[in-house]
């Protein structure tokens, strides 16, 4: 019962019968979840959201297609035209999705045909929940088969799947009390084979999410990564682990002293594993409050040796979401085996998708949106350089920049959201750094401006078609840059989550031909006038494990280097073993491609 209502089986998260969807398999299993998943470079294209929000329509989309062709943006790699939220009829028709009859009167297949006729690729949008973020009651949940069949019939090439109205987490518009599914109850002790073990004194807490409160352990679950409050690095989930010794292997009864809640930090769903075997995965009966402890019914455990690790946990926040995305991908593959579809996960970093996104998707959003002030026809929308929340270029960058180890050709890409180039509120210089950051970080490059505002030779055109920058993003080696230096004092620039923008960062990125891209980003709103240098050894020290031995040796022992400034296109040769910039303007950057001369 929740709030006096019975939770029916159909309203509960599915049972997980495939161990590849379990937390313990996130780092890989013998059999991949989707063997067909391709290695692909970050997607590039135009998405309707930042430009027009819910106001996109057929006429505007066609105008964008015309401009993509007129500007030749597809020749630079911008191939996908993606219809974001706001394009569907707000209710199903005989169970099927349909286009909004006012905005897209010709329907989605006609739109797809128009996109394909222009030699471009067609993308669409949906949500893993019951409704779309716009409120349209056409979420894909429980309609996976029929919707995916329609998507295949419409010949989509890309799908962005959002996370609104999700049933099993407190996502946007979902019930905050869905925390019952995403956190374990508070745990005071366990009793097994006649011995009682205190959660506080006798167990280890893994990770940093859980903590001790009075005589119990709380927050057993996974950090919510939607807001920028928490680092993405390290173990984002906590378990309570008891080392239990018994006289002999056998069947034992486990009783848990617990208290349930329905808020971030304390829930009702409990998972118990003995070593790596999950032996219990279900909801416990509700208690009066998160501090009124009761004993569970005995839970039978099979202990196969005398020494056992009993893990009290709840990884369902991640597993449920992965499961929901997996259902969609399965059906897309089922109906369109030969169709090559980019699968863009957009759950806003909520469930730490950097841990599991690679199993099912080609990219995963890392935070909530980069702007909530999207444009409309005649309105550029507004973006920001910095903000306390996710709504700025630097908020997204600050998190993505330490997530390089999660990305790669064999995995997929961190997605710090679509480009905001061309929106109000940010300068050309900020846009320049924004583009360079996204390219250094191998982010998907989805343009988000009204392309009718872009003309060949203007600053927006020159920036989004900077082939040298795009070449970094699309480099075949597929290695996201690593932060190798920052002017803020820290122990490990590659791994430390830094949100103070009063700094300059240096990023290094190995490239397929043996070159190295080196970028200096001034995040401050004032000029940085002191010289910043990084040495060849420093670069090698951070990224040599991403390069072949011979490339490392060649780079290290070169007697001379060519540095190409990827904005000015100036080239200079240097025999120095350090690379420097003497000053960087406010919010500006310098990006070099370093090649060996001799």
């Amino acid at each position: 019962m929740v709030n006096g209502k019975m939770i029916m089986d159909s309203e509960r998260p599915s049972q997980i019968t495939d161990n590849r969807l379990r937390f313990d398999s996130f780092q890989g299993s013998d059999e991949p979840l989707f063997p067909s998943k391709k290695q692909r470079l970050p997607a590039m294209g135009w998405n309707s959201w930042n430009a027009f929000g819910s106001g996109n329509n057929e006429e505007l989309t066609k105008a964008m297609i015309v401009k993509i062709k007129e500007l030749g943006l597809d020749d630079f790699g911008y191939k996908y035209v993606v219809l974001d939220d706001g394009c569907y009829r707000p209710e199903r028709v005989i169970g099927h999705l349909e286009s909004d009859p006012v905005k897209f009167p010709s329907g989605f297949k006609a739109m797809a045909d128009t996109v394909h006729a222009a030699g471009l690729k067609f993308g669409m949008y949906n949500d893993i929940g019951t409704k779309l973020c716009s409120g349209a009651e056409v979420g894909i949940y429980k309609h996976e088969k029929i919707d995916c069949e329609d998507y295949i019939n419409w010949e989509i090439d890309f799908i962005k799947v959002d996370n609104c109205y999700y049933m099993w987490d407190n996502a946007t518009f979902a019930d905050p009390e869905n925390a019952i599914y995403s956190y374990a109850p508070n745990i005071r002790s366990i009793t097994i084979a006649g011995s009682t073990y205190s959660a506080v004194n006798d167990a280890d807490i893994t990770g940093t999410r859980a903590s001790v409160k009075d005589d119990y352990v709380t927050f057993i679950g996974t950090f919510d990564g939607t807001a920028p409050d928490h680092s993405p690095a390290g173990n984002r989930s906590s378990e309570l682990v008891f080392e239990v010794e018994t006289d002999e292997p056998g069947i034992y009864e486990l009783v848990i002293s617990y208290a349930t809640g329905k808020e971030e930090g304390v829930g009702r769903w409990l998972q118990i594993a003995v070593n790596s075997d999950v032996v219990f995965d279900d909801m416990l009966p509700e208690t009066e409050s998160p501090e009124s402890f009761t004993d569970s019914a005995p839970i039978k455990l099979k202990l196969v040796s005398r020494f056992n690790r009993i893990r009290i946990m709840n990884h369902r926040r991640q597993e449920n979401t992965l499961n929901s995305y997996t259902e969609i991908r399965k059906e897309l593959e089922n109906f369109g085996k030969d169709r090559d579809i980019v699968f863009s996960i957009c759950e806003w970093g909520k469930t730490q998708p950097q841990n599991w996104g690679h199993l099912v998707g080609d990219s995963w959003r890392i935070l909530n949106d980069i702007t909530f002030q999207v444009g409309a026809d005649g309105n550029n929308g507004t973006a920001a350089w910095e903000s306390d929340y996710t709504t700025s270029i630097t908020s997204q960058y600050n998190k993505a920049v330490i997530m390089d180890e999660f990305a790669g050709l064999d995995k997929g890409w961190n997605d710090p959201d679509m480009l905001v180039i061309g929106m109000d509120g940010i300068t050309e210089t900020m846009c320049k750094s924004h583009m360079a950051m996204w390219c250094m970080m191998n982010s998907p490059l989805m343009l988000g401006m009204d392309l009718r505002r872009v003309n060949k030779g203007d600053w927006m055109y020159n920036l989004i078609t900077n082939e040298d920058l795009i070449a970094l993003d699309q480099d075949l080696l597929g290695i996201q840059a690593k932060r190798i230096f920052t002017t803020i004092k820290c122990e490990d620039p590659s791994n430390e989550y830094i949100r103070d923008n009063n700094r300059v960062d240096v990023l290094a990125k190995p490239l397929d031909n043996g070159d190295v891209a080196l970028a200096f980003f001034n995040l401050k709103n004032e000029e940085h006038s002191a010289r910043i240098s990084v040495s060849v050894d420093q670069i090698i020290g951070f990224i040599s494990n991403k390069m072949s031995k011979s490339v490392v040796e060649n780079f290290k022992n070169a007697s001379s280097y060519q540095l190409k400034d990827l904005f000015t296109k100036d080239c200079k040769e240097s025999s120095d073993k350090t690379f420097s910039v003497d000053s960087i303007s406010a919010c500006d950057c310098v990006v070099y491609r370093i090649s060996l001369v001799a």
Partner: protein
Amino acid sequence: MTREQFIKRLLEVFGEDNEDVFSKGLENGWLEFEDKLYRDDEINRKNIARIIHLYLLKEKGISDLKDISKAAELRDLYDCRVCANHVAQVYLRDIMSAKELSVNGRFLWFDLNGEDDSAAIEDYLIRAYGITMNAQ
């Protein structure tokens, strides 16, 4: 108040013809098809915010406030990516106000899915009208 009643009243307050309200709003982009489809449903606060904001923007030329950071004091502002700007614009222009909650401390929230009575809605419309008067 239903969506249709709200839209009609909006047009009345602004002294406009309120016949065939949907086609005009849909054509000019300040209504969504769902407003027509669910015309008899009670209108909630996020939809009131959306319609007032878009009506002011598209019919009355009231440009958006660029800095909406103060609206972040609404605890639920970013719960809704599609309506955050609508909410921020009507909140910062003092057309619609926040609600106050006392749960683990006091905080403001917009109550996106909440509903208001007719008197409150009338007040919003009069304030919205006042914005256009002041802009002239």
